[in-house]
């Protein structure tokens, strides 16, 4: 539906053929392989996938917190090395912010909320004068719906609930007026009843502050809800296997993996969920990163796999006929692809 790419403007962040490899006990861990992504201002991109598939790694590379091993990452169209001078680098640094998953670990227990917010404000001269500083803190806390701010500003993180803490994390990221926020499972540890509130607030912030948000989650229902106006990228073992506008990916999934995921999600509706059709996988277990299967990494589990095809060559990420999203599945790209599945 909405593929917000005003071709003229350079993307905020662009990943081109990015690889990330770790060496661990003589093994090569191929955590990310050939990742291509563009994030434009004010866009929502959602990364979903199972645990360990490289979502956080991608997020950190996007946020500029991690250097990749191969490929190219461009910030506003330029490689990071071209940002010379302290001022420029600082500006770039501040453009990209991250909100962590664990609200217990992401706030320093030794400081009050007021302190946590005032450090970046002071350091980057975002405000001048004490009164302005305090006014700004007040504003930020109001912005993230922590009202009245006086109730939280002098408290320590442990005195707040998980949801409140997550809001503080967001407020902290906002202190430096970023252009992009990577929200890494930002609500998976807060309670169901408050999640929606935080997501709504993020939506509002995106609109008010023209933020781009990279939303990382393994909860497809949540992804669907949050990224309805953006795109979803499904990752499997370090690769993006499907990417496209959310309604398409959710409503008409292309890749077998995405389909399996969607089918596996229980629904908060007894009738619906008990009659949902399952896609039985051939194997329960996800292969180790150190031993990624050749060809399509999903083929050992894929119920639709074509022997001799899927295990032989890497499927390209392309738009299959009849779909609006890109998917990396060889059978799909073949003429009879659609038929085989009986969509």
């Amino acid at each position, binding site marked *: 539906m909405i593929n917000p790419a005003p071709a003229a403007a350079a993307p905020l962040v662009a990943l081109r053929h990015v690889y990330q490899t770790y060496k661990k006990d003589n093994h090569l861990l191929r955590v990310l392989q050939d990742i291509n992504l563009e994030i434009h201002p004010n866009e929502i991109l959602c990364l979903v996938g199972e645990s360990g598939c490289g979502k956080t790694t991608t997020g950190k590379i996007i*946020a*500029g*917190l991690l250097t990749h091993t191969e490929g190219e990452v461009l910030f506003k169209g330029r490689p990071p090395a071209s940002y010379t001078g302290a001022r420029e680098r*600082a500006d770039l*640094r*501040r453009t*990209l*912010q*991250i909100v*962590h*998953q*664990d609200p217990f*670990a*992401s*706030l*320093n*227990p*030794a*400081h009050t909320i*007021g302190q946590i917010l005032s*450090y*970046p404000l002071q*350091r*980057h001269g975002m405000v001048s004068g*004490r*009164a*302005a500083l*305090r*006014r700004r803190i*007040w*504003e930020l806390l*109001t912005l993230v719906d922590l009202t*009245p*701010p*006086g109730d939280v*500003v*002098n408290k*320590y993180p*442990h*005195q707040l609930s998980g949801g409140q803490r997550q809001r503080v*994390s967001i407020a*902290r*990221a906002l*202190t*430096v007026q970023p252009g992009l926020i990577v929200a890494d499972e930002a609500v998976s540890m807060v309670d169901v009843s408050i999640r929606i509130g935080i997501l709504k607030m993020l939506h509002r912030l995106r609109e008010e502050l023209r933020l781009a948000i990279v939303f990382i989650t393994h909860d497809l229902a949540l992804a669907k809800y949050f990224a309805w106006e953006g795109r979803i990228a499904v990752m499997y073992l370090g690769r993006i296997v499907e990417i496209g506008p959310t309604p398409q990916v959710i409503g008409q999934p292309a890749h077998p993996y995405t389909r399996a995921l969607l089918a596996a999600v229980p629904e908060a509706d007894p009738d619906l969920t008990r009659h949902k059709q399952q896609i039985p996988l051939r194997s329960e277990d996800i292969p180790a990163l150190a031993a990624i299967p050749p060809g399509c990494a999903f083929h050992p589990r894929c119920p639709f796999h074509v022997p001799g095809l899927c295990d032989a060559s890497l499927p390209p990420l392309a738009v299959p006929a009849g779909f609006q999203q890109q998917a990396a599945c060889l059978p799909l790209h073949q003429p009879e692809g659609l038929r085989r599945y009986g969509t």
Partner: protein
Amino acid sequence: MIGFATIATVPGLLIGMVCGLIPLGIALYYRQLRPGLLGWLACAFSGFACGFLGGVPMIVLTTAVVISYAYVNKQDPFTSRAALAEVNFEETRLELLLRLLAGLGNSVRAGLVALLRNKAGFIGFLGVLFFFLMSVFGPLLIPYDGRPHPDRRLPESRTLFQAPSAQFPLGLDWQGRDILSHVVHGGQGLILTAGLAGVLTTIIAVVLGALAALLGGVVDQVFSAFSNFILTIPQFPLLLVLASVLTFESNVALALLFALLSWPTLMRAVRAQVLSLRERDYVEAAIALDLGLWHITLREVLPNMISYIVVNMIFSIRVAMYSIVGLVFLGMVPLREPDWGVMIFVGRQQGALSNSISVWMVLAPVLAIALFQLSLVMFTRSLEEVFNPRLRSGL
């Protein structure tokens, strides 16, 4: 010099009493008589104990506490529930000062409460306090008995040792001197040196450990190799050699020597701790916010290690005390009396342990050391609470 020299003297008391007028005055201004009086007493007391060194910092602390009582009623814009437009964020310098002092005062109070909350910790605190008071004020009550007293020899006795009696509750030592007075006077030096050694060990360990962890690479390897090297040095001959080359005249030199020999274990622990803290999400957030290495080290990492560091510092103090006594025991330090270590050394040499009339010369300092260490151990439990904001403010 004014400072420690004024310990437990009338000038010290005067200094303290004068210092105490400040919190008292402020308290009167705010009509908070009780904290004011307590503040005055605290100032007088610590001035008495440590002269300027105790009195002046105490002014700040007690004043802060006084203000923290008074400030409750002040309107901090942040505590108001008014809308943004109605809130006035301007404040004068005085208001800022008051606000900061009140914050400090609140922390002090919370710290005190945390200190008192843990039963074992509180007993430990009392123990440490007892030894402190004994070392500082004990000398006022019990004069130092430094001269031999051949005249105190009991008829028929071959020695001047005497078993405890009503007149000499801990008996007499080999020179016929009052053991009690030596116990009272003999702690200062040892406690001070051990304390200094512990502090220095901790400083070296923390600095090197933090550097190794934060800088990594070659620095890390060099420091780690160096610490391994120190660990394998046989300390006994090293001390022998050093003792023949250096005179451990000052407590500082002795403490430094200990610090130089004992930092490696703590350094490794600190390194591991910093490495793990560095991985914390909030550190990553600070990097993303571009807060700078100094900020990250001092504001993000360090405060979370304080409790760990302090507990380890106390541990180092205990180890240092044990080792200093050992060094004295080997006779490698100038035997400056009065000193618990020297008592054990000379007592052993004079065969004090062979005889029930003389055994107190060794037992008394040994018990003093053991009890002091016990107090320290128990005290650390309270300290953990004091330094942990989670425990501290969960009132």
